[in-house]
């Protein structure tokens, strides 16, 4: 049944790439999400405006459009930037940076899910008792210390269900990078399916891998919920 006609190892490699891509994007999305949430709640109208613009614009346009825009336009953008540097520096700075699909994939997925994460984190921050933050300030902690010691550990409990949700969607979105030339699981399975003429043989195992990753993630997120709920009494 499991005869992959020699495509097995390469599809396995594609699975590793899918995981790497998903995890790196998650890291970027997490960071952008935190920044976006803090921006949305900041007293400065400029920061609030920028963050709202970011989350609205990203969430209003399909992932695939962002991906193609960055993929087809990315090299032009990079070249224009370094041409500009070349011109202003009178040829002192002469760099050619080849545009890499993997970076494009991580950047696009990270930026897209950063917008979703920002909404998750905003809700989570609002769920933390305001008195906690005031108490931190009263102790003379700097804003960074308040964030690290008081806000972050408490907001994570409220954020984890949302993060888990976003992660599951993010994982599935990585399948789209197959169309911008990255050799992830889906791309390799498509190639194998086309050349052998047997789509189910390759797509079903790939689908099972996705289900497996999301099942494992469920377990990890359950653990994390326990970790971040320490000291919370259940009602």
């Amino acid at each position, binding site marked *: 049944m499991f005869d992959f006609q020699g495509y097995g190892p390469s599809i396995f490699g594609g699975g590793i790439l899918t995981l790497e891509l998903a995890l790196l994007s998650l890291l970027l999305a997490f960071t952008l999400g935190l920044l976006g949430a803090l921006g949305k709640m900041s007293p400065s109208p400029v920061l609030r405006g920028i963050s709202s613009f970011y989350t609205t614009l990203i969430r209003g*346009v399909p992932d695939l*459009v962002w991906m*193609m*825009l960055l993929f087809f336009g990315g090299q032009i953008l990079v070249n224009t930037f370094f041409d500009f540097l070349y011109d202003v520096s009178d040829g002192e700075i002469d760099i050619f940076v080849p545009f890499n699909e993997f970076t494009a994939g991580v950047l696009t997925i990270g930026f897209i899910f950063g917008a979703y994460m920002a909404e998750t984190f905003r809700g989570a921050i609002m769920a933390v008792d305001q008195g906690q933050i005031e108490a931190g300030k009263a102790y003379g902690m700097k804003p960074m210390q308040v964030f690290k010691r008081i806000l972050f550990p408490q907001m994570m409990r409220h954020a984890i269900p949302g993060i888990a949700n976003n992660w599951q969607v993010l994982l599935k979105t990585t399948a789209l990078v197959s169309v911008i030339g990255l050799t992830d699981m889906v791309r390799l399975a498509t190639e194998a399916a086309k050349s052998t003429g047997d789509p189910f043989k390759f797509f079903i195992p790939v689908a099972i891998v*996705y289900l497996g990753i999301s099942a494992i993630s469920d377990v990890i997120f359950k653990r994390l919920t326990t970790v971040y709920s320490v000291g919370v009494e259940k009602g």
Partner: protein
Amino acid sequence: MFDAAIKIFSNSYTWAHYWEGLVTTVQLTLLSLLVGGLLAVPLAIMRTSKNKLINWPVWVFTYVFRGTPLLIQLYMIYYGVTLIEGIQESFWWEIFKHALYPTLIAFSLNTAAYTTEIFRGAIEATPRGEIEAAKAYGMGWGLRMRRIILPSAFRRAIPAYSNEVIFMMHATSIASLVTIIDLLGAARDIYAKYYAPFEAFIFVGLIYLCLTFGILAIFKRIEKKMLAHLAPR
């Protein structure tokens, strides 16, 4: 700097092509939502059943369709139908040789899975008292479902369902990967014709953005009307 954009958008072919794409995107979205929604109602009722034999298969269906990428589902159905023995000689081939039907099947099943879970949540959130009152009136299961449970469940499901509608509209952009000229497919053609990625994709992004806001506005009106009893006073 804007020369390229002027050249692209002064050509009526560009507008006609984007229009064709817009029509396809709207059709794909509405048809998949219609079929998916019709499938989701019985599936959601089955999913809330206490009988494991009824509940379990629906759970497997929603788990698989929500847990795997839509792209894989589309590829499986799109490439899979060609494998059915003898289909290329039958009249079905006239229908299935176009990418549209496999795509509609994939999208409908996918949105059916998500909608089933949304409706299930709404059905399970029915206040106990309403069901007890219905039973006290002597209503049977079918009558109770039709008159009491489903109408209030559909109302409760509106906010979550509006998200699903937007997701589905965005997801239809995947159709462009199996040769369908939807909005994104049109943008890819324009990109290829003029080699102008920014003009082609930013313009199509703006159309999607307008569609998203349009859907949000429609649902805001529906919510105002249907959920008026829940509005803060």
